[in-house]
């Protein structure tokens, strides 16, 4: 992350400094409490990232060194990564995850934008009822659906098929994404829609050329949210896909433990590879990421 971005973020949050002076007790041995504060923050930071650093360091260890208590490898090597790539088809799993995730995210973004726009800006009979129906299951635990979805995909001959998994993901993701897009579209001034209609633009033209560009922050939010949700999803993927050629990354990682529970360099290398895409995107788009994920707060 660049320094420029850092200062940018701070400039957008001018409050902390002011709040600081006002929340803290005025002179209560200020230096001591400052030092203590830094110490706590340092410990929290270390606690958050140490497991991840340990993971990367272990993945660079030689097999013989796996169980030595030294955290830092004495002879760092990429052997575990080479093994992963040549023997464990990690490339295949990565590709499967990329494919399932991009199709799901693409479909959810397009369909949720259309529906969100309709619910926000077009009047049609039954709108309110259908909207509430879609929202009624927002809190539905996925575990409730796993048995019937398994049966349904079996009926459709879509078990062990990425298409079946994608359909289940889209169905599960749409109501919430639609809900978010609707709230974004309601903030776009209605005059723009009326002006477009006066000019004789079609409803689809208004949606595509006027509304969609204005709803870009909303699209960014649901893209990130759906990307994380799909990339990290485990239970549906583990249940609906069986063959190694179909498997996505998360169930593949879980299966790997069964076979290589004692080969920690290979295990940690696999975990490291699996988080590279998400962590990279996070470090680049940090602000949007935090907004996108916490927008999911109400979904939980």
């Amino acid at each position: 992350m660049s320094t420029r971005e850092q200062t940018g973020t701070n400039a957008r949050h001018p409050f902390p400094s002011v709040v600081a002076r006002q929340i803290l007790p005025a002179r209560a041995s200020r230096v001591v409490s400052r030092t203590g504060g830094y110490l706590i923050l340092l410990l929290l930071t270390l606690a958050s990232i140490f497991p991840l650093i340990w993971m990367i360091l272990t993945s660079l260890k030689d097999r013989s060194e796996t169980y030595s208590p030294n955290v830092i490898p004495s002879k760092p090597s990429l052997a575990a990564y080479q093994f992963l790539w040549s023997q464990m088809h990690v490339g295949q799993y990565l590709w499967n995850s990329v494919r399932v995730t991009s199709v799901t995210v693409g479909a959810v973004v397009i369909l949720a934008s259309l529906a969100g726009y309709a619910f926000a800006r077009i009047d049609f009979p039954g709108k309110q009822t259908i909207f509430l129906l879609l929202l009624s299951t927002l809190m539905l635990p996925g575990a409730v659906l796993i048995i019937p979805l398994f049966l349904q995909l079996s009926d459709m001959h879509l078990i062990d098929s990425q298409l079946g998994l994608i359909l289940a993901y889209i169905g599960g993701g749409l109501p919430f994404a639609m809900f978010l897009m609707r709230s974004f579209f309601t903030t776009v001034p209605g005059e723009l829609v009326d002006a477009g209609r006066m000019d004789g633009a079609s409803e689809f033209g208004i949606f595509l050329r006027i509304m969609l560009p204005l709803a870009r922050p909303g699209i960014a939010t649901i893209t990130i949210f759906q990307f994380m949700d799909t990339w990290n999803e485990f239970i549906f993927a583990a249940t609906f896909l069986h063959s190694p050629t179909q498997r996505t990354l998360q169930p593949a990682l879980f299966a790997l433990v069964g076979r290589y529970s004692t080969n920690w360099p290979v295990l940690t290398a696999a975990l490291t590879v699996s988080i590279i895409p998400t962590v990279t995107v996070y470090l680049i788009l940090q602000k949007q990421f935090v907004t996108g994920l916490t927008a999911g707060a109400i979904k939980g």
Partner: protein
Amino acid sequence: MRGQRALYGYLFILPTLAFFLAFVAYPFFRAITISMTEWAGYDQPRYVGLRNFINMAHDRIFWIALRNSLLFTVATTVLQTVIPLLVAVLLAQRWHWDQVVRTALFLPVIISMVVASLLWRMIYDPNFGVLNSALKAIGLSSLAHPWLADTHTVMPAIIIVSLWKSLGFYMVIFYAGLQAIPLDLYEVASLDGANGWQKLLHVTAPMLWPVTTVVMVINIIGGIKVFDVIYVMTTGGPNHASEVLGTYLYVTAFGATGGGSPSSGYAAAVGVVILVLSMIGTYAQLRLTGGRSDVY
């Protein structure tokens, strides 16, 4: 014109509605139906009314799972509300490098639950895990422990992982809530002679209450449906000591740990219990936040 516009409205929502009906609504009603059958998953389902639910009363493992689900929910809700709140208040003071701290705390939120769980499984490993190695290194080998294999420590160990993974998430929500408190309130309090702690108690705390309720409710609902972290770390073991409703449902339906034939009907009934408990959680949210689901 109006009629044509309405037609577009239906056209735009049609795909979303179709996906919803096919992959959420229909499976949902099917889940309720299955919960009232006796069915191994491959034979003919047989309607048994509420028998599955009655049988739960005598099912020792069901009660363990229910108790653990509630324990997990209460513990994570308390820890994952209080600690992120304190960290957010601390971070909202002026610090150098505060952006670095926030980035670091959010990293565990980014990685998947599977990765976090597998990682901590290795950290907790009784023989080679860093936790026990560290304890031995600082002369506390008596505290070294098979954390996930001991029925007394397995739940706390898993709860720590949940806290590690979600601290940054809830902290960010509280942090945003703190930024949204109007500064005039602090000025008025200063004029009234309030000191720092009084401001924390009488301005910050009440202004953060709506955000706090949202955090608590996300925690409650997340706790009731917890699955990934436990399934990946222990599959509910040892000897069901970390069994929760989610893992019990899954293992009953798909027979993951072998032994016992899969019973889809009974598993679906466990799903209905999870559903009812999370509905109670949602209802609590509506009550606490006065129907506003958009507080954050």
